[in-house]
């Protein structure tokens, strides 16, 4: 480099206006695909693995619950207090009672329940 080139290279360049940085970065942030993730609350982002595991557990519980074929049937067999039970409900009750009577320790309890309910 000769003298003129050195002299030119030493000239300080004008710095960018201070307000540009914030404006440009905020415009770029809006374009970023990551910006959409920011809508999640901070506490969800802080422990993503833990929250993910919890969500997976709930999904598994929900799936097992729906996949159980007896679930709906049992719910429909529930006897509502104050209403006369249907024939199906009575039949289901006796079937369940028979099964429980085969379980030795439960016999006494069942007989007590019979005394109150029937």
């Amino acid at each position, binding site marked *: 480099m000769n*003298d003129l080139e050195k*002299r030119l*290279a030493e000239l300080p360049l004008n710095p960018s206006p201070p307000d540009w940085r914030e404006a440009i970065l905020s415009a770029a942030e809006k374009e970023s695909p990551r910006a959409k993730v920011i809508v999640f609350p901070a506490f969800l982002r802080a422990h993503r693995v833990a929250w993910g595991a919890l969500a997976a557990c709930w999904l598994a519980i929900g799936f097992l619950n729906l996949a159980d074929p007896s679930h709906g049937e049992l719910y429909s067999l529930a006897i509502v207090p104050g209403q006369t039970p249907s024939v199906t409900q009575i039949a289901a009750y006796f079937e369940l009672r028979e099964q429980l009577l085969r379980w030795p320790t439960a016999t006494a309890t069942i007989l007590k329940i019979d005394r109150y309910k029937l």
Partner: protein
Amino acid sequence: MIAFLRNLAHCESDVRDVTQEIFCRLARDPALLAKARNPRAFLLTMAYRMVVDMHRHAAVRERYAAGAVEIFAPAATPDETLFRESVAAAMRELPGEQRAVIHLKLWEALTFEEIAAALDLSPNTAASRYRYGIDKLRTLLRPVYEDIL
């Protein structure tokens, strides 16, 4: 990069528009910069291409009347102010290709190989553009430069 854009663009709003567009493009596709071997050269290349594209639009020429950008920082003395203004005016006299090479060489301290890669030229072309540009600057600045030194 902003200083480089100031040397190439014709008004401050163009500099800002191009800078913002570069950042938005990178935000949309961060892999662009991640894949670059030399991120600084990559940004300068992006800036150069966008300014060239911008100049192709006829509408932008109307903005030339808005006044030139301040390339250099304000000086403390009148002599230095005069010199910086003269350099800025002389730079505007140069063709865009020479101005780009001179800026990258003098104020970004890139080698001719790096300049060639950034501007998509051969190193020899970059070097010859630099020499032609410096010769023109010397001619244009001779009165001021000799007064100051």
